[in-house]
């Protein structure tokens, strides 16, 4: 039998099965279609086969990283949530996905990674706490820089005086996009009737991240809370497809318990190793420079150790 298909994705937090938008989309789609995936929820992107998350390792040992391509692969493997859609509904899927990608996604990235308050108090905090040492020192910063660059390329270079205006415009368009989604959903359970499709996975992941996370600066969140059918849509999907994760109300301090216990032995081990390495370095230096010597020091060297013994005291402190 071929190796099972494995999915590597970011771990859960904030009451959601995953904190990362792309990982959440893929997870949701997999749940919708009941695809038998072996899911590895990790907090260290370097342990993923491609170096980034999410990543899918197929049964033929091929690695796929973009969410669109992962979903296409699953559809080819007969786990197709769009199978029953009419041609017109498929066209609508393409159109609405473009709408969300153009209008909502940049603002989501901005809310979580560029807005100073949110980034420091929520995003960076989670990633720094979840990632193992020493990645948590530089990886969140690097992720932020990548996303900022991505945003700048998408929205054009803002001139300094226009930056605030540009931001206002972006948020205005995102609010409009949310309203449009709400109008299109109406009172239906899913976008195309009673069964979920790939568009639902995509939209759900955007909305869930916005709704569930406790953001200190949440202008878009406030607007979304006003669109009741979208809120009901999110909680419906969460309770139906992610019952145990959705049931855990996010604690006031978003400390991820799952990945923490998993990483415990590794964290302890790396801490012990780093302390041992430090000790070995100090002892080695002391021996090599003659501050501490094992055999009897030669007469010519005797003033040396005495003068250096003060340095030794300083060092041992």
């Amino acid at each position, binding site marked *: 039998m071929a190796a099972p298909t494995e999915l590597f994705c970011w771990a859960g937090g904030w009451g959601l099965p995953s904190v990362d938008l792309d990982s959440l989309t893929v997870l949701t789609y997999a749940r919708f279609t009941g695809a038998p995936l072996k899911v590895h929820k990790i907090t260290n992107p370097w342990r993923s086969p491609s170096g980034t998350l999410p990543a899918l390792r197929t049964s033929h040992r091929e690695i796929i990283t973009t969410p669109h391509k992962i979903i296409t692969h699953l559809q080819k493997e007969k786990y197709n949530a769009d199978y029953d859609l009419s041609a017109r509904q498929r066209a609508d899927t*393409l159109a609405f996905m473009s709408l969300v990608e153009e209008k909502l996604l940049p603002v989501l990235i901005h809310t979580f990674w560029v807005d100073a308050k949110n980034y420091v108090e929520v995003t960076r905090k989670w990633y720094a706490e979840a990632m193992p040492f020493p990645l948590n020192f530089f990886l969140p910063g690097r992720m932020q820089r990548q996303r900022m660059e991505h945003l700048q390329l998408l929205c054009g270079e803002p001139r300094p005086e226009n930056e605030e205006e540009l931001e206002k415009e972006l948020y205005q368009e995102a609010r409009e996009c949310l309203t*449009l989604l709400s*109008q299109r959903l109406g009172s239906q359970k899913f976008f195309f009737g009673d069964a979920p499709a790939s568009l639902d996975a995509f939209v759900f992941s955007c909305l869930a991240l916005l709704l569930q996370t406790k953001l200190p600066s949440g202008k878009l969140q406030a607007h979304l809370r006003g669109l009741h059918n979208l809120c009901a849509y999110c909680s419906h999907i969460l309770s139906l497809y992610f019952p145990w994760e959705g049931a855990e109300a996010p604690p006031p301090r978003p400390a991820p318990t799952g990945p923490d216990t998993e990483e415990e032995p590794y964290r302890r081990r790396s801490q012990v190793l780093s302390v041992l390495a430090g000790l070995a370095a100090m002892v080695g230096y002391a021996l090599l420079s003659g501050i501490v010597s094992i055999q009897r020091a030669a007469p010519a060297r005797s003033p040396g150790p005495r003068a250096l013994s003060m340095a030794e005291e300083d060092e041992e402190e």
Partner: protein
Amino acid sequence: MLVRLVLHHPYPQAFLQMCNLPIKVVCRSNAEYMSPSGKVPFIHVGNQVVSELGPIVQFVKAKGHSLSDGLDEVQKAEMKAYMELVNNMLLTAELYLQWCDEATVREITYARYGSPYPWPLNHVLAYQKQWEIKRKMKAIGWGSKTLDQVLEDVDQCCQALSQRLGTQPYFFNKQPTELDALVFGHLYTILTTTDELSEKVKNYSNLLAFCRRIEQHYFEDHARGGISVRLS
């Protein structure tokens, strides 16, 4: 209200003519620098300048002309979504073909983009623009796409548009809307300039009929030289 229009694409012209507004088209090589946001097309009305299609539509709406008043909420949502699809797929595909496909770049784009400038400025500016576009393509995930993949994406987009249009004269039945203007503009550009993309579009007969209908109705009636090219 006489509108002076500076453009690279005919869709705002189509839109404005659908609103029955008198316009004068001006083609300028430094259009990008004249525009307040750095993007074409833009319109010049009296002493106001408005750039990009979205704001132009809003501006015209504020003056009392709008094409989408008759649509209900769900239809308006669909219209906006399809407009984004067209922008996302067709515009990016056109840019890709113009700037990332080596053959086209060498033969057509460098010459056309750099033509108003003396040597060596023409090479420098063209190269700089190409580098900028390539960076943007990489950011949106198109950097690693081959020409075949891009053509397939265009095909998917055209299929979606064709299915949405069906047998109706316009996308939202009897009356043209901003979406019709946008789709016409892009398809017109594709059909009259590039070969590979136009082959994909020609597979969908209802889209071809749609373009011809708009061209006949709004352009040949106004007897504008240079726009009425045979679409065959």
